[in-house]
């Protein structure tokens, strides 16, 4: 092992900024500092051009018109703007029901819950045990008054890829708007909005080697989708999102998405080899379970439950690697992951899960080291575990009557 520890395997929480992105941003932090809304001088025009060039790069990655891209402060704001903005605008004509999936990101779930507080109705559909949404069950959950459905393209915890095309077609047939959270998808799966039946799509820069604090929302123009602004002020972004545009961050997102467009094919092949190697290594150990479907999944993600190991001690035992147990946004809490529970995993298995997420700067040596480290630490933890001992002795743990204390 020649590299430094801890080894970063938490690319789904956030990615480092690609050095090329950082270099492109810095001039806009120094001499090119205009406010893109300043229409009276060269500083403002220069910043505005940079913003529009970046908008074109974001549009190019997902095959849409640059005029369909609205800048936001990140995917959380994009999800809030898409869901509240569209529901508020269309509920009067279509109805008050919202359909989403129980494994969505908190930024979607909490937004829908807020709308429930405001008097809307919601259905939170569970996915199948492999993490994928069943199209027939989705169709059955659509109601005549379903104004909007929201489904993420790639799940942040288990990396499964939903069949957006099929689900979107079902929404179209039902006259329901379709929002897709693609924060975890850009640079990992090809997205072609020119043919996908999607009306609104959320993006983030910092999951794709761009900076934090910037994201975008795709708002379809043909047929034109209207949204009610959620942040009001100077009327930036054609009135859909007010607030001074952070030029350097926008430039960074544009460059990050350009790099993703040009390099994702080669990069994903390399990352897939590393991920498959990691899984091959870890699955040599007994009582290790993969969470989520392996085929319909981005190559970057491996989410594994280690039976007979306690979750918190597991994370402490492998502190040479930076990984997540549950998604970063909820890891402040010790509750087992709601995503894994929605797949039907027991609390014990949900608790003892690790999400390994691999990225652009992960090396083969790091994967080799990780396999070795995790296997040996799991062995040590199990040596200390009475449950593991009972399991080894062939006792069916589900039949044990535990004494209450």
């Amino acid at each position, binding site marked *: 092992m020649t590299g430094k520890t801890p080894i970063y395997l938490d690319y789904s929480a956030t990615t480092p900024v690609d*050095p090329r992105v950082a270099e492109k941003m810095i001039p806009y932090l*120094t001499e090119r500092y205009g406010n893109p809304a300043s229409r*009276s001088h060269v500083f403002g025009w220069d910043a505005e051009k940079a913003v529009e060039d970046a908008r074109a790069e974001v549009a190019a990655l997902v095959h849409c018109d640059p005029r369909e891209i609205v800048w936001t402060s990140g995917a*959380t704001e994009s999800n809030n703007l898409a869901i509240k903005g569209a529901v508020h605008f269309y509920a009067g004509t279509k109805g008050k029901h919202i359909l989403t999936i129980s494994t969505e990101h908190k*930024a979607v779930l909490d937004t829908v819950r807020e709308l429930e507080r405001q008097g809307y109705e919601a259905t939170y559909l569970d996915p199948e045990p492999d993490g994928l949404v069943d199209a027939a069950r989705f169709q059955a959950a659509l109601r005549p008054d379903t104004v909007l459905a929201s489904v993420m393209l790639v799940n942040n915890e288990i990396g499964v890829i939903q069949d957006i095309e099929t689900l979107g077609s079902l929404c179209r047939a039902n006259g329901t708007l379709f929002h897709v959270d693609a924060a975890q998808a850009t640079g990992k799966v090809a997205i072609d909005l020119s043919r996908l039946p999607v009306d609104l799509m959320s993006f983030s820069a910092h999951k794709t080697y761009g900076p934090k604090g910037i994201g975008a929302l795709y708002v379809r123009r043909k047929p034109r989708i209207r949204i009610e602004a959620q942040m009001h002020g100077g009327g930036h972004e054609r009135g859909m999102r007010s607030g001074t545009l*952070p030029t350097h*961050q926008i430039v960074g997102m544009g460059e990050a998405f350009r790099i993703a467009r040009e390099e994702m094919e080669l990069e994903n092949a390399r990352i897939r080899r590393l991920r498959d190697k990691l899984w091959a290594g870890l699955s040599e150990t007994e009582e290790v379970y993969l969470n989520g479907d392996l085929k319909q999944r981005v190559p970057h993600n491996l989410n594994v439950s280690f039976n007979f190991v306690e979750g918190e001690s597991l994370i402490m035992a492998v502190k040479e690697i930076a990984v997540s147990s549950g998604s970063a946004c909820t890891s402040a809490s010790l509750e087992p992951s709601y995503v894994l529970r929605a797949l039907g995993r027991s609390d014990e298995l949900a608790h003892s899960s690790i999400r390994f997420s691999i990225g652009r700067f992960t090396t083969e040596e790091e994967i080799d080291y990780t396999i070795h480290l995790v296997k040996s630490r799991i062995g040590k933890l199990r040596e200390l575990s009475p449950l593991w001992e009972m399991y080894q002795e062939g006792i069916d743990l589900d039949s044990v009557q535990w004494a209450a204390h």
Partner: protein
Amino acid sequence: MNAVYFDHNATTALDSRVLEAMLPYLRLQQGNPTSRHGFGRHARNAIEQAREQVAAAVGAHPSQVVFTSGGTEADNLAILGITAILPPAQIAVSAIEHPAVLRPAHTLRDRGWQVAEIAVDADGRLDMDSLHTVLRQPTALVSVMAANNETGVLQDLAAVSETARRVGAFVHTDAVQALGKLAIDFHALGVQAMSLSAHKIYGPQGAGALVLDKRVDIRPVLHGGGQEKGLRSGTENIAAIVGFGLACELARRELAQRTAAVVSLRERLEAGLHRLDATIFGERAPRLPNTSFFAFPDIEGETLVMALDRRGFAVASGSACSSDSTEPSHVLTAMGVAPAIARGAVRVSLGAGNTADEVRAFLHALEDELTRLRSMAAIAV
């Protein structure tokens, strides 16, 4: 870009020390502050240090600082978040507020709220009689900016909050333009909420804060992962927050020098403007030390600004956020300035790095352009 930059109320260049502090977080931003591993903890510590720096700059407690994506979001969070908890009543806003306060306030009408505008006098100062009249209706929230972005005119916030307190109304102030240009004390002003922005004080675009008295209940406007104690979800923009923190600390430490530098430049500028018979808006009121908003009655502001840009001077014709429109400034309209004069308005906002030579050169260029534009106007007639 070799132009002389006189548009610091629109945005400022990043202080090189702030850039240095941000670069490690821009280049190696591994670590989501909510992640529990070492990378995540490091990010969290950086944010907490910045929170202390922001709090210190306005005399608040760090726990009162909620980071946002900027001043607009802070204003929206204050206006929409505070009112979301309350039964519909009246919100009172001054007639000269930034659109980031006025627009969210007006959306409250859909939820059954009354929106009252508090008038200002000819100098741009809040009309206290108008405030008293407005507050005769049951009022939940009053929003008055600390300093106006166009005229730079300051308001007596302590008097506003004293008046509002007597009728049980909360006070929010948009202090985006005041921060870094004058001393601000959140507690002494008696307000319950205050909006701040980084990019007006030599910090980065993309960071701001709402300073909030914890006795005020507030509902978030962004829902999700529950960051910022649930008041503002979304992965924290660490690099920008770190930059905002240092920019606040530098502004606090260097306030006296910065003020002294722009005060003398503005005196020189306005002496020249008087010689050219300019009308200077809000001149008799206490103002930010860096701002001069003026007009020449027979000259279109937009035309003059474009002419000055060609001569290498970056100035504004109104606030950047509304530079698109050719409507006269709502601030000047509220001050009772005739549309013909208001349409001539040009704003110079001075800042770090501006020199006496630049002001002198500007006055020369201005005089030339006035002569040229007037002679063209004479031919056109």
